């Protein structure tokens, strides 16, 4: 899709974890909205693609889910971060920061600096 950035599954998973970390317990629609808001509609997330990712994360044990009542008092499935998930998020955040820092430094270098 032109004009929008392709999202790799791993990145999407990280976004899900971060969202749950910030918002706490949240249902699928809430997560999708949040990601949409933060990324400013830049990411070409067909909202539906979120669900296989949620399933994968749950199978890995980084998130857990249960049925609950939504704000409008309707039945909805809520996801939350598990302890393993939080650890996972921490380590991936660190990695991500390191990577961006390195890349940033790389781009900041001008030709004159190397001479």
């Amino acid at each position, binding site marked *: 899709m032109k004009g929008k950035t392709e999202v790799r599954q791993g990145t999407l998973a990280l976004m899900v974890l971060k969202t749950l970390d910030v918002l706490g317990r949240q249902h699928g629609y809430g997560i999708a909205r949040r990601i949409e808001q933060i990324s400013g509609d830049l990411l070409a997330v*067909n909202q539906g693609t979120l*669900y296989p990712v949620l399933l994968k994360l749950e*199978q*890995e*044990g980084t998130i857990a889910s249960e049925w609950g009542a939504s704000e409008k008092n309707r*039945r909805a499935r809520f996801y939350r971060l598990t302890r393993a998930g939080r650890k996972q998020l921490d380590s991936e955040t660190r990695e991500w920061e390191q990577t961006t820092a390195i890349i940033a430094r790389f781009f900041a270098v001008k030709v004159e600096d190397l001479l």
Partner: protein
Amino acid sequence: MRFLRRFFARVGNFVMRRRAGERLREEVEEHLAMQMEENIRAGMKPEEARRQALLKFGAVARVVEEHHAEAGLPWIENLLRDLRYALRQLRRSPGYAVVGVLTLALGIGANSAIFLLTWSIVLKSLPVPHPGQLIRYTFRKGESEIGLSYALYQALEKREGVTSGLFAWSNSEATLRRDGQIAKVPIALTTGTIFDVLELQPAMGRGLDPRAGEPGAAYQPEALLSYGYWKTEFHGDPSVVGQSLNIENNTVTVVGVLPQGFDGIGPEEKIDILLPLSFERVLHPTNAALDMRGAFWLAVMGRLRPGEGLQPAQAYLAAIRNQVNEDADPQHVFLNGGFFSSYELGVEAGRGGRSWLRWKYAKPLVALEALCGLMMLLCSANVALLVVSRVSGRLREFAMRSALGASRSRLLAQVLTETAVIGLFGLIGGALLGWQLAYVLVRMISQPGFSVVLQLHAGLQVLLFTAGISIGAAVLAGLWPAWRASHAAPAADLKQTTSGGTVNRLGRWIIPAQVALGVVLLNAALLLASTLLTYLRENSGFDAGDTVLTGANLADSGETSKDLPARDLDYLHQVEAAPGARAAALMSMAPLGDGFSVGNYYSRDPQGNLHVNEQIWPEYVSRNYFSLMGTRILQGRSFNAADASGDSVCILSAEAAAFFFPGKSALGEILNAGDGTERTTEHRGFRVVGIAEDARLASILDPAPVAVYFPIERQDAGAFTYSTLGVRAATPQIAVDTVRRIHSRIFPGAALSHVWLFRDAIDYNLSRQRLLCSVSGGFALLALTLIATGLYGILSRTVTERRREIGIRMALGAQRRQIVTGLARTAALRIARGVCIGAGFAAMAGGLLRSLLYGVAPHSPWMAMATLAVLATVLAFAFVFPARRAATVQPMEAIREE
């Protein structure tokens, strides 16, 4: 960790058939409802809100599918579905399935049989710890190997150097008397050190005394039972340790049971009882090999010290070899200038133990393995053809599925599954067939009249090998067709009623490849068959196929040697007089047997020149020997009754006559025993009364030895404790029954130990050639069948595919002859290409087979022509039927068909 956790969750879902679909549907509904509400809040109409929500969510079906794929193990689900489909397909066309399975089963069967043999004979290690550290001493002259003398063993043991220990071993047979029954059991004599060297842990009791057998050490009457013998004959009774056995009328105490799996030091050994080496003095009280420096009867093995290798061991042996020979034979009678000085002591890897079978069959088996590989390729090619012609018949189906959205990998997987199913059945059939075939082959290489048989061990390795080649064959056979199916082009393949010559295209490769393989296999088979025929046709100096030979060791029955000659003659006369017996004779040594002895003889010509030959084969025979064995008397006469007393006489073989009395008739001349020097004490003279044709006494494969025959009836011939009697009767069975009856009457204490047909002895001599000939012949037959059916299949398929084209050409005026010629030209070109490639490889194969051939050149043009003739005949048959079908195409029908 996370990966594993996820994997188990998925396996769980798959196995429990848990479906997350319901939950997902609810979640999606919820999601859409929330989005819709928000859209409505933003001012949309309800329908529009719903539509926008759906758009934003994306394709629900795809999400559900993805979700499902993440939840379970879709590839296994698909595999199961493909399997079900493949089985259904195969059931619908049983002919196709049967031919495919049979082709693979034959190839796999042949491969696994030969590999089972190769594994058991050549590759398998002794079942002892760290077999790689073992070494074996050899005593060889060129290709022929004999054992070591006990003196050599002692000399080696004194200078251990690189080894941490040695043991000596000899196989034999002994009479066991138990519960009133007499049985011959295979035994082995060994030094007590074997338990340390091989690190054998007795299953029960203890090993032999390590000092047993050493000079000076007292003979200890103790024995160990083999595990199998203990289980079958003693029902695994633990109280057997401490019991006494009567072996050769000696009381021997059982001190233990050998570990399970250890039945001897070679693959063809299966001993029942292990005894100390000093038991040899009990077996042969007067002439124990243990006390003879000239008896070369022992296998000697050792274990290298840690860190030592074979090369240091060889270097060490080279350094001490002369000293060892000196120690073992200080008088230089046998070694260092004696008769056995042309034999050299060597050392080689002992991982597989000692095996005559390996010595004899290692090379043929390697050759057969190579032929087997070619065979397997041929089988795979044929199955590939089969699958392709099937796939090309179903191309429309594949194209349809492809058009409906099936991915390439799914189509690929489906065709591969189908060949895999055929491969699996082929594997099962092949394994069963291979096992049976291996037993037939083992019977072929076993010695007639002897109980020693190769033990086949279908271990994990053999299983893996069989599975490996099956998978390889199935993949080879299925890959191309699968690729073709997965690339079914909807546009092209759906439109055509018949596909565009897929089979024809494949034939461009497969026919030449098959023909080339066939040429190699056929040529090899013809070379090997010609070798066997040469041996069979050559004059061996015998014509005695139906003669039954029987042997009994009279010494082990406690017979005293004093009146043995007389009783032996009595035995002969009774057999000769028995009703049904046509001819009978005694002989000191059975022709084509295992043993040999040589003696010194000389003649002196009128000029006083000495003609000495130290390698004369002396054979003591009774007077009907020559007529019984079919050895013709060329000059003079055979022995008669008068020869039993009076002048000493002899009959020379033609070569002996030419050697001792060159340039004149040997009849009436005198042959002397000894070497004509003062050293020999014996100077008896024998008058030559006859000259017999040269006979291959040692082996059908070896040139006839220079032989001298003496009458066995004479008192001064000496006593033979091992007597061989040959009989010919109306049928071999009558002969055997007669001999058994009379033998038990005259020698009640001794059982007839060996009974065999002379023809079987010839066959055994030729067993290597027969094995090679029959296996390669079978391969060649199979190859011809495969090539013929392959060509037939391709041509008929081509004719079917090009029916319309042929019809149009005929409608335009082409003659039937032209159609057939066209077909023939294509086929002939491809076959010619195959023959050219095959000829090159056949020449290479012939070169590799060189050492296994006899009487035929490895690149014999006659064999090449025969190969081509056979191939041409078979292929012509395969060509005729499709060609007739092409010629009888009715133009109007063919064109109208669509």
